[in-house]
């Protein structure tokens, strides 16, 4: 039986986690900025999404 390609799996999961966390937190920011009519929510949450995504990426690649 050929050995499963774990590098590919790792890359896939890391990429999806990065993208997902950015999208999830930006979406939350979008919702909040609409609700309170303040664009700051979107900006803060987008940056938070990038940070969390990068952190999760680091944790999975490590």
């Amino acid at each position, binding site marked *: 039986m050929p050995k499963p390609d774990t590098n590919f799996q790792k890359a896939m999961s890391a990429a999806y986690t990065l993208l997902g966390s950015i999208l999830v937190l930006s*979406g939350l920011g979008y919702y909040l*900025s*609409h609700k309170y009519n303040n*664009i700051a929510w979107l900006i803060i949450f987008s940056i938070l999404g990038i940070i969390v995504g990068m952190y999760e990426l680091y944790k999975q690649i490590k």
Partner: protein
Amino acid sequence: MYKHLIVLSTSIGLLFSGGSGGSWIEDWLYPDTGLFFWAVITFIIVFVVLRWKAWGPLMDTLEAREKQIQESLNKAEKIIKDQEKSAQDNEVILNEARQEAKSIIAQAKDAGEKLKLSLEENGRTKYDELLSNATEEINAQKQKALGEIKNMVSEIALNASEKIIKRNLNNDDNKKIIDETVEKFQEKNQ
């Protein structure tokens, strides 16, 4: 900048907006709690049923099959090892047999050599014996013949001398003289 972003976001929202109240994308994005509960319940039911009835037996079967395959492989390996070992044993036995045959041949050769030697030795001794026997016999015969000849000669001499000088001589004196003569002769001859 600030205003531009608001305009951008609202225009994106407008692009997707539907007719009756809000954009379809909001309808689609905000999860419905009722559906959420149904999804969880349905999935748990599916999971429990499959775990119990489908995956459990399937995993057991696969595991059993894997075990069986492993056992068969082990067995085959063992048989191959045994065969190798028996082949080695055969080789050893064959070598031993060869060695033995060689040694037997060598022994046979040795024995032959020895036999030949002993035969030669025997022949010589017998010959020597025969020779010495023959020599002794010859000597004995010779002695005997000499004795006879001596007797014969003495008798002949006695007879002749008796005939020649019968009258005047005493027998005893004559005999003494003749014996002396014969002895002298014998001494000479010896």
